[in-house]
Every structure is written in structure tokens, then in C-alpha cells.
């Protein structure tokens, strides 16, 4: 637990010295800002689904970009050798890294609260659906980070890690749409595993327990795979 915190904190501070994190964060804020401006100008609505909807794809990219270096970079620089020879569990390494990246993602998501705050100045937004939308964004973010972190354990090349996690993320996202071309039963089953299935419920203001469980399960599953993959690298 203590080790997890040490690793998470180290990861979080290292983002502050990384130009990559600033660029990625700025792009995320700029894009969600554009979606926000567009949706509130077009529909003059006071709901957040207008930017949280398309914001989800940006979030997937953000997840891949923030996590690509977490293990890959340490492997490339050789610092993984010191990390993995310290009396620290592989699970503490993975969870610490995950929490570090989640810290930054949470901060970035928090910055977009600026948009609903604007809405509350010029209108009277309904905070219930907004909270639900943000919960959805956060949960999707957790899943994206854990998938990205898993990809980062597979290679010492950050770009490869980003491509792999981007691939998994978009496959899991669009498999829902693809499922509609499949026979009904199969299609429904496949759709059940899609990252995009529960997301619209959240942005339209519903908190579906199955959605919460689904995103948390995906997160736990990929953290587990990340731990296993890190363990495996000792046997290479």
C-alpha cells in the first residue's frame, strides 16, 4: 500500500516534467472545449451529453497517450531493473502506475468542469445528469488507462505500446456498432463487451449499475493482465 503510494506519487510528479503530458492534456481540453462550444451553440442546450459524447473518443486517445510510457519507458531506460528488484510487489508497481496516471486524468477531467460551471452562469443546468455523465467519463477513463498500462508492459517501445492500446480500445469501442451486423443473439452478447454500450446512458443522465460494474471489471481485468505480463518478463 505504502509502495503503491510512493510509485503513484513519483509517476504523478514525473508527468509535471513531461512535455508530452502537457501537450496531450492541452489537446484534450481544447477538443472537449470545441465540442462544448459546438453543442451549446447548436442546440443551445444546458446538458453535457453534447461534449461528453464525442469527448469519449478523445478520452480513449488520452488514455493511450498517458499510459504508453509507464512501463515501456522504464524498460527502455533500464530503470525497470531497479524498480523490479526493490522489495515491491509487481501488483504494487502496476497499481501505483495506474493510480499515478488516474490522478492526472482526474485532474484533466476536473478542468472540464469549467464547461458546466459556465452553463450554470448562463442557465440552469441539471446537475444530476451532469454528475452521471462525469461518472461515465471517469469510469471509461479508468478502463482506458488500465488497457493502456497493460499494453505498456508488453514492449520497450512507447509508440508500439500506444498503437497496441489504441487498437484494443477502439476495437472494444466499435465492437458494439459492429455487433449490429451479427445475428441477434451473438450480436447482443458481443455488444455486452463493448466499451461503448453503457456510455450513452451515463451521458444522458442515467447511472446504470451494470455499466459501473462493467467498466470496473474491465479495469480490474487489464490491471491483472498487466501484473501477469510484468511477472512474465522476469522469465524471458
Amino acid at each position, binding site marked *: 500500500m*505504502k*509502495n503503491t503510494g*510512493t*510509485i503513484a506519487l*513519483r509517476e504523478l*510528479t*514525473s508527468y509535471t*516534467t*513531461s512535455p508530452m503530458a502537457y501537450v496531450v492534456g492541452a489537446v484534450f481540453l481544447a477538443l472537449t472545449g470545441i465540442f462544448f462550444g459546438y453543442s451549446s451553440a447548436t442546440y443551445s442546450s444546458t446538458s453535457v451529453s453534447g461534449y461528453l459524447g464525442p469527448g469519449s473518443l478523445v478520452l480513449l486517445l488520452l488514455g493511450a497517450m498517458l499510459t504508453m510510457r509507464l512501463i515501456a519507458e522504464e524498460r527502455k*531506460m*533500464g*530503470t*525497470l*531493473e*531497479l*524498480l*523490479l*528488484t*526493490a*522489495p*515491491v*510487489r509487481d501488483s504494487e508497481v502496476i497499481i501505483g502506475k495506474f493510480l499515478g496516471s488516474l490522478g492526472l486524468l482526474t485532474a484533466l477531467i476536473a478542468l472540464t468542469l469549467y464547461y458546466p460551471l459556465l452553463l450554470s452562469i448562463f442557465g440552469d443546468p441539471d446537475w444530476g445528469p451532469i454528475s452521471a455523465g462525469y461518472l461515465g467519463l471517469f469510469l471509461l477513463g479508468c478502463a482506458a488507462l488500465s488497457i493502456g498500462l497493460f499494453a505498456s508492459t508488453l514492449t520497450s517501445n512507447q509508440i508500439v505500446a500506444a498503437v497496441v492500446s489504441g487498437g484494443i480500445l477502439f476495437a472494444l469501442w466499435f465492437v458494439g456498432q459492429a455487433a449490429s451486423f451479427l445475428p441477434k443473439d451473438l450480436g447482443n452478447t458481443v455488444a455486452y463487451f463493448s466499451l461503448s454500450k453503457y456510455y450513452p446512458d451515463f451521458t444522458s443522465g442515467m447511472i446504470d449499475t451494470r455499466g459501473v460494474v462493467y467498466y470496473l471489471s474491465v479495469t480490474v481485468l487489464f490491471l491483472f493482465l498487466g501484473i501477469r505480463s510484468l511477472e512474465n518478463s*522476469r*522469465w*524471458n
Partner: protein
Amino acid sequence: MIKVENVTKYYGKRLAVDNISFSVKKGEIVGFVGPNGAGKTTTMRMLTGFLAPNDGEVEIAGHDMLRHSLEARRYVGYLPESIPLYTDITVRSYLEFAARLRGLEPARVKDRIDAVVSLCHLEEYVDSIIGKLSKGFRQRVGVAQAIIHEPQVLILDEPTIGIDPLQVAMTRQLIRDLGKDRTILFSTHILTEVSTVCERVIVMHQGKIVAQDRIEKLATILQGGRRLRIEISGPAEQVASRLRKVDGVTQVSTKGSRHVVECSGAQDPRAAIMQAMVESGWTVLSLEALAMSLEDVFLKLIARQEAKQ
């Protein structure tokens, strides 16, 4: 403190460490010698738990590195070969991170940082970003992080490579000092280094241990210098055959008036050679001791090993 039993490691199909066994007792300083590619780094990675052996057992302070890895790792301080460090933070933040990760109680972190910083002469640089330091100073940071938690076992992979002579001397002194109350295994491919620092040597070649003995026993071989080049005015054939008869001379190769003489045994045969030449009425024009190359020494050790078996 360190026990290695029948350990084998493959990288894919490539055999890097071939069924080696050795142990290091508490308080010993042991040199781990071998040419590049011998398998030193791979062995050390298994001792520190970074790599798992394909076969065999590694034990640190009585704890099995596979089954009780965390326990075993607590005893170890490690300086990897390439001195990998986070380059984006200051020496102080790095040492703090290392101290916490290695399990030092938070209350002692500050004192220990001060202690290792002064021990490794890093005072002026403790607030510098590691990425801006020269190789020599990074090496000091590497040593500092290895000893920050006062480990009982220190594993140093080529700690004196790529740094200036003054610092090499400093590092050797540090190893000697640290070795007074802890167990140290350090690797090197500089043979003379081991004789100045350690009590015992383990020699590795192509994944196998070809010799392990106390330094005095291997000293004559390891220090080299038992090959002489002599220039003698006299009939080359006769000179060579007379040289072969001198006590301790094992082999003579002749080129013109120059003879390269290989000697064995502990005593210095130079006086005997001089005398033999004088008695035969030939003049010794020059005599110099040739340092043996690393390869020669390894070849000798391997030959010795094969003769034993």
C-alpha cells in the same frame, strides 16, 4: 549470504548461464570476473530477482529468491551495469524515492540521504537534475541508491567502468570500506582490479564458472607478468633449448634473437635465466615482463579447469 545452486538461464534458445554454483559468505568481498558476454550481468540479474533462472536456486540471506522474493530482495542493494536512473528529477528526490521503495522507515530517510551523499561525495550535486550530471556523477548516484537502505548484500555490476581514474580509485576504496561489514559481489572485466579490492574471485567464461579461489591462489595467474620477452645475442636454437631447461620455464617461442618465455609457478625465474645465459657465455640484451592479455588468462584458467576434471 549468497547461495547459487545449479543455476541455468536461457535467453530464448541462447544459453547465457550454464549450470553454475557458488556461494558468498557473510562479510566477504568477492570479485566476479570474466570477458564481455561471460554471463556476469545475467547472473547478477538472477541474484537480484530481476530475472528468474530457468533452473536451479538462488538464495539471499537464507531466503529463496523465487519463493520468498520480497524477503530476499530486502537484503540486497544493486547497482546495475548501465546505471539506470530517472533523469527528470534531482539527486535528492531520486534518493528519497529509492529509500522509500527499498523499505527504509520514513523517519530515517533524511539522515540516510545525508549520509550516502557525503559518502559518495555528492554534496554539490544533490539538488541537480540527474539528467544533467556527467557519467561519473551518475555512477555515484547509482552507488548511493544501492547503499541507501544499508543492505547486507551489495551487488555491483561493473561499478568502475567508464569513469575517470580518480573516481575508479575512490569507488574501489568505497567498496573496501563498505565490505568491512557487509557482503559484496562485484563484477569487472579488469583483472588487476580484483586483486586490489577483493579476497576471493569467481571467474566466468561463456556461461560457466572456470575458477573460484582465494585471491592469493589465483594472483599469479590473474596478475599476469609471467611472460617474458628476452633479447639474447647467441645462437638462437641453442639459446632457446637452454632457456627451456631453466626451472619454471614452460614454453619458449623464438623469433630471431628474441625469445618469448612462458613461466609457471610462483617464483620469479628472471634471475635464473640471467645466470644461465651468463654461464653459457651469451649476452642478455634486454628482458621485459609482458603483461598477459585477458584472453590469455582466461585460456589458462580454462585449461587448468579442464586439466582438473
